[in-house]
């Protein structure tokens, strides 16, 4: 798909082709999940080119990755639709489409890959595509952020690759299914897991390794920020999560999981405080991403002790956050484009001019705060539940506190948006810069729908759990 985009010169053709392709991809992902359910959630693998596992490369699919695929295709369809109207500049649009499809391909590769080295290649591909996407706007800020993101990303994936090399050195296999059977809790595999973990934490921007994220995510064009924040971080988290809890499980320790959990808790607090004090809307959303990523890592110690419900919580949280965050970035992008700035202090009274953007922002915010009936509420409820069941009540403090903090920074924006503007700082709105928000609206509605129909996702996860054997947890 990406190659096709490179070849086509006309942007309008590109635009429609991309939308059609995204729809086809979504249908395909839905087909995959139906297939998954019909297989009762067992892991399906596909051998590429007829070479079997130790020599060839295989793709594998389980319940978790099929949910991730549906999420990926839904969100990317929405972002595709949005970017079709966002990029007014011919040149930027021409650069955007091939790169965004490259990113999409890499993410699919990550969710489907059955081989550790292949994961590395996909990780790099994703990183390179992401960096080029940030640099599209050509402003000096964006280029600096892209450079920093690239160097950090390369460093992170090299640490990951070093861990993979250690594993290959000691076990001689890279295929995940084979590896699951042979891996042992030796020092060398713990070391390998340590390197992989640090590398991926760096790429997923867990506190204190998050320093590159705010610049990178806030200086990119809005559809790109949405892609990076909603999907790319989930890709690296997915790798880390599945390595910890289904492949390299013998090498994991409760202490390690608790350290990650504690970092996650700190990320929630720190990210929220930064989001509260920042004065730019896109930076606020970016800091909120750091805080939300913290929740995901909070799941590590819970998952270690009590995998059954926590697994569902993780999948649920990822989906809810991806939809909400993508919708939020799109709304913020629209506000920025139409008013020409994204300074929060100058946003008073903006609701009268951009009612739909603020509405979407508010709905996505409700999900991030974890208020019912949104998807975020169910996700937090599940985390809450598994924290209680695994007797680790202290994490609940951070879950509740984080919810309160996120409501405080989101209400700060909404509050300003609804107050009457003072004359001196009234914002001019440029209606010609309007972008199609219908897809962001659909995503916002989806966050509510999955909140009301939590069983859809949880049932599939349960199917997967029934067939998978969890080695972790005493």
């Amino acid at each position, binding site marked *: 798909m990406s190659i096709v985009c490179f070849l086509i010169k006309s942007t309008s053709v590109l635009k429609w082709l991309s939308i059609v392709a995204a729809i086809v991809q979504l249908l395909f992902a839905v087909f995959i999940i139906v297939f998954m359910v019909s297989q009762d959630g067992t892991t399906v693998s596909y051998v590429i080119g007829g070479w079997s596992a*130790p*020599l060839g490369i295989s793709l594998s699919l389980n319940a978790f990755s099929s949910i991730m695929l549906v999420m990926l295709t839904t969100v990317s369809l929405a972002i595709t639709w949005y970017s079709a109207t966002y990029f007014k500049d011919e040149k930027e649009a021409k650069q955007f489409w091939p790169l965004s499809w490259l990113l999409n391909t890499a993410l699919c590769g990550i969710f489907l890959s059955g081989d550790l*080295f292949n994961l*590395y*290649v996909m990780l*790099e*591909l994703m*990183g*390179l595509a992401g*960096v*080029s996407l940030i*640099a599209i706007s*050509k*402003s*000096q*800020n964006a*280029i*600096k952020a*892209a*450079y920093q993101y*690239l*160097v950090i990303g*390369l*460093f992170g994936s*090299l640490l990951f*690759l*070093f861990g993979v*090399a*250690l594993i*290959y*050195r000691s076990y*001689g296999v*890279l295929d995940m299914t084979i590896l699951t059977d042979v891996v042992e809790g030796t020092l060398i595999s713990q070391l390998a897991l340590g390197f992989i973990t640090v590398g991926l934490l760096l790429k997923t921007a867990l506190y204190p390794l998050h320093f590159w994220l705010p610049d990178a995510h806030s200086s990119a064009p809005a559809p790109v920020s949405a892609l990076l924040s909603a999907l790319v971080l989930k890709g690296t988290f997915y790798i880390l999560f599945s390595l910890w809890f289904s492949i390299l499980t013998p090498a994991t320790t409760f202490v390690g999981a608790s350290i990650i959990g504690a970092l996650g808790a700190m990320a929630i607090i720190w990210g929220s405080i930064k989001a509260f004090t920042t004065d730019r809307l896109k930076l606020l959303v970016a800091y909120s991403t750091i805080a939300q990523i913290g929740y995901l890592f909070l799941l590590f110690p819970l998952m270690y002790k009590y995998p059954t419900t926590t697994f569902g919580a993780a999948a649920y949280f990822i989906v809810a956050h991806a939809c909400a965050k993508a919708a939020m970035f799109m709304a913020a992008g629209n506000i920025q484009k139409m008013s*020409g*700035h994204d300074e929060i202090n100058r946003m008073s009274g903006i609701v009268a001019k951009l009612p739909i953007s603020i509405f979407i922002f508010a709905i996505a915010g409700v999900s991030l705060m974890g208020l019912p009936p949104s998807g975020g509420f169910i996700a937090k409820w599940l985390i809450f539940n598994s924290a209680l069941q695994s007797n680790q009540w202290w994490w609940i403090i951070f879950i509740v506190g984080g919810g309160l903090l996120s409501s405080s920074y989101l209400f700060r924006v909404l509050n300003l948006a609804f107050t009457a503007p003072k004359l001196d700082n009234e914002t001019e709105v440029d209606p010609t810069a309007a972008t199609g928000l219908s897809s962001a609206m659909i995503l916002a509605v989806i966050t509510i729908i999955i909140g009301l129909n939590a069983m859809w996702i949880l049932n599939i996860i349960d199917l997967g759990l029934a067939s998978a054997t969890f080695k972790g947890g005493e």
Partner: protein
Amino acid sequence: MQAELYTICAVILFALGLIAFLVRDGVFHKVLALNVMGIGIFMLFLSTSAFYPMAIDSVTHALVLTGIIVAVAGTALALNLAAQIKLEPLSKEQKSCDKSH
């Protein structure tokens, strides 16, 4: 014996790159350090093949080749971006400031 020697050298090379990456500040130092780290990792892959010197391990072949290609692409992009930062430090920033006001 040979395999162990290769492994130790590979780890040392990786460690050198790692330390350089963390300590040095310059753009080119960082990119070079990343490349040294990468080469250390490739050596580690290659050392696996040294276990059986007579057999040709096609997997490591493929891995290292792929790895080199990815490393080259990454380095090229990093240098390209770095060059864009150096060349026009102020003019573009001013332009983007002018646009937003």
